[in-house]
């Protein structure tokens, strides 16, 4: 368990560090382009993600800080606050503070930063009392800082700057010194001034105070010990002086695994592909030589080596493919703890059941589904499962149940999050949609329940009345939707009022490989994604009928329009000038069927989708390209684009 926790925390650290790096850059971009809503949304989501993750790992200071930062961002997003450089300074400072807190978490030193000043500043920005100095209670352990606040001179800007400098100095000094310092409690015990029990008591008191006080004004352990007369003031001071930096502690080994840029893996995969092609040629040459010089021992050696290289190459290819597959367990593991903590904070009784953790998915997909799942599970706990009493009066068990499962369904992996909570009230949802101005009653009237439920995934849509730490800012669901569609997946909701809600995420097994039908037109070869192919038919030209100038064919009493690929692509091929026998690939786009006429069918193949450098996608129905066994490039067609209105007009 401890190991698992470490792994979760190290994941959190890596992710958050990445997010913060990104944030710094985004803020700089934003400063240049203040009205960029997309960027603001992006930043808002990042902060939200950090808050969410710290929340369930119990890093309270982080939550405090990011919560208010998020609130400020929200105001900016809504246009209630203008992003002047001064506001930006404060936000950036808070991001820096998040970094400091991260360092503490990394060092596992349990040190709490004094956030009072930072929170005050953020609050001031949030309240719009920007010109005034932060309105906050001076911390009880009054230090130099307070002198500055109280000796407020007319020139307030100056004071503020000094305050800033002061806070910065203190912050960096704290971070530097305390990280390597022993805890005051430990030192006191070592000196025999107090017993371990006393320190524990003091720590408990500190925790209690922490919980009741909102900001970071928590008395130091030493102060509590003095106050509870366990140690005298002098003793504490003496030992405090001794609390000098100690040699660097062994830091938590953050990385148990290496996170590798998917691009690099792709690169390796590409190189292996090239190697395979080279091997094929080598084998051909080698067997040619073998046939020619049957009695040469050197050639026999060459053949042996070639066979060996063949073996290695095959293994290497498999190994590289395998590096990209990981069990979903990796993501699922962090949820039981999260659900437990969430249900405790919300005083709900929730049990999480996992199934199908061994299901394997492509690495890039595994990496991307974490966030959406966090959001969905949080939603289920927060909005889905009712309070125990409510459940009881509704005739359910006090215990809510969330089932998180993964299973394979054809070429897809399905992830399902199912709760037995109150379900989504579609009527309330309708009202909310109209109230938020997303649609009108008349429009909603014509929509199916499924379509109405789709509104949940729009940016800025949240049905929660109260903003909580957990969810309800209306950023979650649209993030989920965006992330899932980025992976070529889709998400659907099934809900039954009073009985529960089920979210189904359908994801492709891997991002890069699809089944395709290889067809030939003239001398060209094209790949058609098999997913959209219904059937293939051998055809005689005389079977074609012309209806209103358009060629059609009647297949089992169904009229199917025919398009000649050769004409569309302006290729000189038998099928474009009336050859006797041609083939028809019947494709379905949406609900409609189309026939695509080709010269030859080569059969089904697994192809790796590659994008074409500098190619603006989806022009003229080309979805991308793939490289066949002999190293040639074959274009992959995109039937959806080809047979949409624009494609047909040609």
């Amino acid at each position, binding site marked *: 368990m401890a190991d698992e926790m470490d792994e979760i925390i190290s994941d959190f650290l890596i992710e958050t560090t990445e997010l913060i790096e990104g944030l710094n850059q985004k803020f700089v971009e934003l400063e240049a382009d203040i009205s960029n809503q997309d960027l603001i949304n992006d930043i808002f989501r990042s902060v939200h993600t950090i808050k969410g993750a710290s929340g369930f790992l119990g890093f309270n200071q982080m939550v405090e800080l990011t919560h208010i930062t998020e609130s400020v961002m929200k105001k900016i997003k809504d246009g209630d606050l203008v992003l002047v450089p001064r506001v930006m300074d404060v936000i950036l400072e808070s991001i820096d503070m998040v970094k400091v807190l991260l360092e503490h978490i990394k060092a596992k030193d349990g040190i709490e930063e004094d956030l009072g000043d930072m929170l005050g500043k953020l609050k001031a920005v949030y309240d719009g009392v920007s010109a005034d100095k932060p309105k906050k209670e001076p911390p009880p352990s009054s230090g130099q800082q307070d002198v500055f606040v109280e000796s407020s001179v007319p020139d307030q800007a100056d004071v503020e700057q000094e305050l800033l400098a002061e806070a910065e100095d203190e912050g960096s000094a704290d971070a530097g010194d305390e990280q390597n310092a022993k805890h005051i409690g430990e030192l006191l015990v070592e000196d025999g001034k107090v017993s371990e029990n006393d320190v524990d008591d003091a720590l408990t008191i500190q925790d209690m105070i922490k919980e009741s006080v909102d900001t970071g004004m928590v008395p130091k352990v030493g102060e509590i010990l003095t106050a509870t007369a366990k140690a005298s003031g002098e003793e504490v001071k003496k030992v405090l002086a001794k609390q000098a930096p100690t040699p660097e502690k062994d830091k938590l080994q953050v990385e148990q695994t290496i996170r590798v840029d998917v691009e690099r893996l792709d690169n390796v995969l590409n190189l292996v592909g*090239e190697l395979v092609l080279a091997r094929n040629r080598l084998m051909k040459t080698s067997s040619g030589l073998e046939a020619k010089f049957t009695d040469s021992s050197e050639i026999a050696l060459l053949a042996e080596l070639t066979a060996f290289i063949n073996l290695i190459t095959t293994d290497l290819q498999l190994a590289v493919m395998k590096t990209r597959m990981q069990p979903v367990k990796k993501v699922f593991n962090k949820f039981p703890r999260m659900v437990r903590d969430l249900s405790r904070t919300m005083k709900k009784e929730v049990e999480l059941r996992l199934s199908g953790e061994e299901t394997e998915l492509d690495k890039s997909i595994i990496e991307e589904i974490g966030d959406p799942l966090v959001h969905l599970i949080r939603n289920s706990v927060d909005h889905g499962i009712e309070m125990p009493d409510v459940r009881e009066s509704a005739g359910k068990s006090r215990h809510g149940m969330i089932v998180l499962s993964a299973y394979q369904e054809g070429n897809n992996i399905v992830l399902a999050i199912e709760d037995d909570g109150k379900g989504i009230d579609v009527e309330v949802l309708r009202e909310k949609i109209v109230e938020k101005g997303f649609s009108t009653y008349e429009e909603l009237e014509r929509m199916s329940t499924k379509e109405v439920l789709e509104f949940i995934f729009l940016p800025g849509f949240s049905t929660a009345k109260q903003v909580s730490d957990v969810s309800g800012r209306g950023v979650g669901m649209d993030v989920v939707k965006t992330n899932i569609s980025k992976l070529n997946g889709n998400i659907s909701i099934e809900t039954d009022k009073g009985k529960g809600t089920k979210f189904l995420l359908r994801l492709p097994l891997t991002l890069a490989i699809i089944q395709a039908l290889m067809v030939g037109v003239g001398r060209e070869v094209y790949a058609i994604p098999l997913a959209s192919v219904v059937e293939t038919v051998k055809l005689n030209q005389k079977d074609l009928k012309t209806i209103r100038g358009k060629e059609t064919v009647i297949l089992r009493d169904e009229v199917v329009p025919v398009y000649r690929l050769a004409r569309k692509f*302006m*290729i000189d091929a038998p099928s474009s000038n009336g050859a006797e026998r041609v083939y028809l690939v019947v494709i379905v786009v949406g609900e409609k069927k189309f026939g695509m006429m080709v010269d030859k069918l080569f059969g089904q193949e697994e192809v790796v989708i590659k994008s*074409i*450098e*500098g190619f603006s996608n989806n022009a003229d129905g*080309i979805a991308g390209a793939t490289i066949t066994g002999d190293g040639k490039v074959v*274009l992959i067609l995109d039937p959806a684009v080809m047979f949409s209105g624009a494609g047909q007009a040609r």
Partner: protein
Amino acid sequence: MEVFTATEGVLQLVTFTLGSEEYAVDILKVQEINRMTDITMVPNAPSYVEGVINLRGKVIPVVNLRKKFGIMDKENDKDSRIMIVDIRGITMGLVVDSVSEVLRVPANIVEPTPPMATDAGTEFINGIAKLQDRLIILLDIDKLIEKTGELSMF
């Protein structure tokens, strides 16, 4: 704007021929030079886009410079080469008649483009280097793709 790498007033160029003329591009723009391979045609692309090729697992577009510059087309032969260049971050191939050499020329022999001097549209030309008995047209290949980026390619 200095688009050619000039070290102490010396330009390093890769020269190639198109028809009867000699052209040159900055050596740093050239990634490699390959023999002709199978080029897969891209339907409905502009005529000067020859198609796409497989460059070690990467699919890149290939532009026929003769067609781009409006020089009469000719069959590819054993001297034909695909010059792999990097244009604003996009790797692409340029089909040329032949690649001659790597040349170092002093920057001060480069003269501005005389109006209407060559077959290539003058907007792609950066200047003309005059060597003893040769005239070399310096191409600004970044201009092959217009400012709007990749979109104008296809």
